[in-house]
């Protein structure tokens, strides 16, 4: 037997040990409260904003924050909740529907660790959920659409019912449009979101445009979030039909949507959630509970803002 295995084994073992030591070093036995933030959705823009705002506030409060991203795996959220409960953190902040992580909530309750929702959902085992009012946001944009088209004409909806917070928006818009007898919903599209949603929404919208070539046959596009609205905008511009006055609205007002709205084209409105506000309010709420306060409401809404061309660049 040659020395290859032996030599490389020790070299590799050494490397591993060095890495391990570095990890322990970085785990820095810091002072202050230990807070675990667990989310399957960290790669999404909104989530990043409030996680960053939460971290910024937590730094001021002198906390030690551990951000855990399970990359879309909800069962792993439960697992990590169990892990940090065993570790004994001071509080857990969740960014996932609590109905799906009941076992994790049980573990936290058993370990006497308070759990907070950051745009998550309501559950008796959660001290408070800090979020935007999804009903209100959807009402703002759908009413905006209804008013702009004078309460009459065909509307294309982009929805995503698999994700509860977005499903709520679609339900509200359905109600608003139904309340206008002359508004017809031409199509209720669920785009494929695996590539972010823009590309597939554009493709779907192009098909709808092709099927409805008459100017005025489509009055508006209402999207439950910004990416489909952007896709629809691209489709309309590519088809050369931007002059027909098709009204597009989104929700969330992400930077790309703000640019489009500021350009004064078909994309007219979106609603901005105050992500920073959600993040910092969550941190403040955690601080209040850790300070001994008892909360009355278990949902705390952070105000939202309608974005149009007049304030898109603020």
């Amino acid at each position, binding site marked *: 037997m040659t020395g290859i295995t032996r030599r490389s084994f020790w070299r590799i073992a050494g490397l591993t040990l060095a890495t391990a030591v570095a*990890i322990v070093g970085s785990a820095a036995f810091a002072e202050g409260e230990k807070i675990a933030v667990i989310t399957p959705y960290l790669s999404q823009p909104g989530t990043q904003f409030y996680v960053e705002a939460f971290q910024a506030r937590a730094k001021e409060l002198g906390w030690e924050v551990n951000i855990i*991203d399970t990359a879309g795996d909800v069962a792993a959220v*439960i697992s990590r909740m169990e892990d940090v409960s*065993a570790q004994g953190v001071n509080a857990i902040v969740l960014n996932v529907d609590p109905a799906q992580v009941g076992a994790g909530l049980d573990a936290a309750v058993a370990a006497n660790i308070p759990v907070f929702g950051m745009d998550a959902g309501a559950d008796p085992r959660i001290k408070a959920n800090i979020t935007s009012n999804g009903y209100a946001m959807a009402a703002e944009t759908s009413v905006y659409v209804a008013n702009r088209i004078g309460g009459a004409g065909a509307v294309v909806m982009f929805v995503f019912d698999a994700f509860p917070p977005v499903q709520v928006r679609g339900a509200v818009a359905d109600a608003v449009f139904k309340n206008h007898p002359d508004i017809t919903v031409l199509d209720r599209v669920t785009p494929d979101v695996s590539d972010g949603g823009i590309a597939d929404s554009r493709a779907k919208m192009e098909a709808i445009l092709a099927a409805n070539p008459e100017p005025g046959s489509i009055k508006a596009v209402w999207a439950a979030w910004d990416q489909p609205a952007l896709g629809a905008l691209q489709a309309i511009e590519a088809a050369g039909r931007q002059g027909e006055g098709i009204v597009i609205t989104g929700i969330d007002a992400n930077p790309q949507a703000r640019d489009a709205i500021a350009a004064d084209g078909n994309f007219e409105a979106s609603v901005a959630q105050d992500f920073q506000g959600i993040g910092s309010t969550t941190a403040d709420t955690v601080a209040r509970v850790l300070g001994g306060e008892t909360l009355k409401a278990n949902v705390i809404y952070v105000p939202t803002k309608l974005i149009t061309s007049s304030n898109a660049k603020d």
Partner: protein
Amino acid sequence: MASFLRHYGSLIGMAAIVVFFWIALPDTFMTLRNWLNISQQLSMLIVVAVTMTVVMVMGDFDLSVGAMASLSGVVAAVLFAQGLPVPVALAVALAVGLLGGIANGVLVSLIGILPFVATLATMTMFSGAAFLVSGGKTIFGRDIPQEFADFARSGLPLGTWGGNLVVLPALTLVAAVVTLLVWIVLEHTIYGRRLYAIGGNADAARLAGVKVAQLRLSAFAFTGMGAALAGIMYASRVASANPVQGDGLMLTAIAAVFLGMTATRDGQPNVLATVAGVVTLGVMDNGLTQLQVDSYVRQVLVGAIILLAVSISALGRRAIRLR
């Protein structure tokens, strides 16, 4: 010494990881409670990886297990929502797994499509079917019967420990039973030995009187059933079902089997080694989370450990060949 390392290097490495966390987390890692947690967290992955081992023993693999787990979960949930009794819904979900597995088997063994291509295609189909069945929605809340959701939280009481009731989680129990079953089948039955022979040399096995086509087909059915069972366990654990929730199981399961293979004497898949691979991955997740290591750093480290184990094993093998 070198041969000792080659044979037991991976096992020593796995043990070293455990010891490392034990030292780094003296109070919370090496506790019965934490290990029961880990076992429960890994139960679904164990079921998928262990049944995946059945096809990997033949040198095949199945990319559709994750999508199948998602599909069986939503099938069960949709049937719950229709008001069917829990046992009926579960039986149908398992039957879906069996049929999907048979479909894979037919494509691979009778039609002769490469497993990579065949199961890649069925993966896409199962995933599409999961979206169709569920209408793209997450099924949760009142649609999921309490008894089904409670199953994942129940367990076998083992007694009291330091004043707390210690419970062997039901999901852990299921994973243990599946592991034992597959281990017996692969190691102690004619069926299993013939699968290993196919993996050793399919042509030779056929000429020695092994019904290669039938066995390959049935092995894929096995794996499909395992994936479906894992999907049901997953749905019970999260008390909900959505059309993508099992997808992540596939790559991790394959990684676990490969990791396990580095620990066996002949470098071939083996059920117990697979379980060791799953546990290693799970312990890394658990320990690194407790150490508050950033989750992205954690991913990089887990991948690095897999590469490390496979590299050591490959170097060991090359050293033997050069002899």
